[in-house]
């Protein structure tokens, strides 16, 4: 007879079976059994200073490695503090398993101390969630959770475990495989549809590839590159896909959308065919749907059938894994080679020459774009870049040199301020030998600044670069452009901590750069340091992100089309 183990032991053994090496979490009353088990487990636990950071760290870990990220929190406030992190992972389709304790089964529903209905709360922001009421169901639930999190369109899965379930005993039987009959994602695309797609590509005169995060999730970057090489079609990468295709490659249109390049937006507006792969026509890409790509037919490849037709009418829907579908498309493209669309490519080159990304140079003050460009030059595509949310995020998207997938880690869908720093911790844990940089703003960094304690604790050598404009810059920009310069609750000047001193208080290196001349030296010192660093980069206060398609606008009507210089 199989030996009976405690629920907490079953959980840890199950995580080991799923090859989990690292967990980010925070202890509490209902997870005491689990923490007791973690005390001498082989799995390394990272103690964060706020549960939200545990979720973002697990998210960053997953995005940068492709493995499932795991976070752990206690019941009630511990669980609800994970919510923003889970929602962030859900919107960007990150494979994550969030484990929460709950009050014992007999206390559920009695408004017990630190009780929260976390499965109810997270229903709309998880791919699926489970409340395990019987220790005999625990192992198979963990198996299902990991299977659901990483297969199909990845996403966060929450497992809520009442305290008595972690203390009760059951035989540990871990299934090798799990089959959920109501959940069988389609992996291979319909060959008939793929052939019609190839046929449309042949007939099109002005096709554009729209590459999305699904390419990164499917590890299809190589296939995308082959497909572009063979077809010689221009490719625009969404925020979630930056690096899937070399950002500065000859066929790259860089990023489209609200703060995308003018040439990407004009190309999409003029296109007669969009080949959309693993992207979901987010409003930050499309502006007003009815005027988005008005001349284009749409081929939409996505593993999630619900994405097809959700926003845009689709002529050729292909449901499948981006990698598998691209391989088939490459096969048919080799069989039936494409004539290069020379006239279209010439038009695109002209657009690129006419509308480059650019900004005003200065010797006096540091422009944030200059800071990002300097970081890009110094790291040569080798570092993993994380960002928070706001103007610094858009400049990072625009001016970094995205050479490879899983090297730009940013909250796209939910736009979560406070994501970058804890995400960078997760990235660093998954990539101990890589240079990990978090480009952030003075607003965002203060949303999870307590994690200075975590990076100091584990000597996680994350380099946090704060583009400090003493404003909530993105909101200020909208107030400038659309609310008559009425800067309502965005000015942080004079109310801000000294970030250098804050870092030092945690025994973390703090540096500051205030002029363009000193910036490279300061960054060099930061990158060379074997430990975490906060770099306070004092930047020009009222710099705007351009180009900009106003919310709900048309892609070919941009403010500051030439990078803002003509304004």
């Amino acid at each position: 007879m199989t030996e009976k183990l405690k629920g907490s032991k079953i959980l840890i053994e199950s995580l080991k079976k799923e090859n989990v090496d690292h967990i980010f979490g925070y202890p509490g009353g209902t997870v005491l059994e689990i923490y007791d088990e973690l005390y001498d487990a082989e799995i390394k636990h990272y103690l964060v200073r706020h549960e939200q950071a545990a979720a973002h760290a697990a998210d960053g870990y997953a995005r940068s490695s492709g493995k499932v990220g795991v976070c752990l929190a206690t019941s009630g406030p511990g669980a609800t503090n994970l919510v923003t992190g889970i929602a962030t992972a859900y919107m960007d389709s990150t494979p994550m398993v969030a484990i929460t304790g709950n009050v014992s089964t007999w206390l559920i529903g009695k408004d017990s101390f630190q009780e929260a209905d976390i499965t109810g709360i997270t229903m709309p922001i998880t791919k699926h969630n489970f409340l395990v009421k019987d220790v005999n169901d625990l192992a198979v639930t963990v198996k299902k959770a990991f299977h659901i999190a990483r297969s199909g369109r990845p996403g966060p899965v929450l497992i809520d475990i009442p305290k008595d379930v972690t203390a009760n005993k059951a035989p540990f039987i871990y299934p090798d495989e799990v089959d959920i009959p109501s959940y069988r994602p389609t992996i291979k695309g319909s060959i008939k549809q793929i052939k019609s797609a190839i046929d449309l590509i042949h007939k099109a005169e002005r096709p554009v590839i729209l590459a999305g995060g699904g390419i990164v999730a499917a590890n299809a970057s190589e296939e995308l590159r082959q497909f572009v090489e063979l077809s010689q079609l221009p490719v625009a990468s969404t925020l979630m896909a930056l690096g899937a295709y070399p950002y500065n490659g000859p066929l790259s249109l860089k990023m489209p959308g609200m703060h995308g390049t003018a040439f990407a937006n004009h190309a999409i507006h003029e296109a007669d065919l969009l080949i959309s792969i693993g992207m979901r026509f987010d409003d930050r890409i499309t502006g007003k749907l009815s005027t988005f790509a008005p001349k284009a037919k749409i081929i939409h490849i996505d593993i999630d059938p619900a994405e097809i037709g959700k926003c845009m009418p689709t002529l050729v829907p292909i449901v499948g894994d981006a990698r598998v579908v691209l391989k088939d498309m490459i096969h048919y493209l080799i069989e039936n080679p494409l004539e290069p669309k020379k006239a279209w490519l010439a038009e695109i080159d002209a657009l690129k020459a006419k509308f480059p990304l650019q900004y005003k140079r200065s010797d006096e003050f540091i422009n944030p774009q200059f800071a990002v460009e300097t970081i890009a030059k110094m790291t040569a595509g080798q570092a993993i870049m994380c960002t928070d949310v706001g103007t610094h995020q858009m400049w990072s998207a625009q001016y970094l040199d995205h050479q490879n997938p899983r090297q730009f880690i940013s909250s796209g869908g939910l736009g979560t301020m406070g994501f970058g720093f804890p995400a960078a911790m997760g990235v660093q844990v998954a990539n101990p030998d890589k240079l990990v940089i978090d480009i952030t703003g003075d607003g965002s960094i203060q949303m999870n600044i307590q994690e200075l304690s975590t990076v100091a604790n584990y000597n996680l050598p994350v380099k946090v670069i704060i583009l400090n404009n003493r404003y909530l810059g993105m909101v200020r920009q909208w107030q400038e452009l659309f609310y008559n310069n009425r800067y309502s609750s965005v000015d942080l000047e004079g109310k801000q901590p000294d970030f250098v001193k804050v870092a030092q208080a945690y025994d973390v290196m703090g540096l500051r750069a205030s002029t363009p001349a000193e910036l490279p030296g300061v960054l060099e010192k930061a990158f060379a340091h074997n430990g975490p660093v906060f770099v306070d980069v004092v930047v020009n206060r009222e710099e705007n992100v351009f180009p900009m398609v106003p919310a709900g606008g048309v892609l070919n009507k941009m403010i500051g089309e030439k990078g803002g210089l003509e304004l």
Partner: protein
Amino acid sequence: MRHIISVIVDNKPGELVRIAGLFSRRGFNIDSLAVGETENSAFSRITLVVTGDDQVIEQISKQLYKLIDTYKVVDLTPLNHIDREMLLVKVSVTPTTRSEVIEIANVFRAKIIDVGDKSLVTEITGDSDKIEGFISLLRRFGIMEMVRTGTVGIARG
């Protein structure tokens, strides 16, 4: 257009919440909803009546199917199908109107299931149009209370 969507899910707690929650957060409206076990007690059938154009109905079906515990989503509307709902209605009557109400009930093949001094309760099943017709005829007598189930439907053949 009105559609009847039949959804087969795992018969376990929480499934109805997942489906109802999906409708509210995606901004779809439910006109009616009926839930019950299927021939196999491991599964429940949730029958939803929803209104929307083809694009909306397609999105609703896909989002329902995307839920991990959903086995099957069928839009019965384009199929040859039968749909029914049931109504219990308490009508105010006087000695002079009682027979008239009973007569209307007979025409509609409704059953009289309770008779009181000043009221009677009738039960009727049928499609929505029939139920609506019945209600509108009873209105002038005074409807004291009514209870209506959601629509259930099944494909023919």
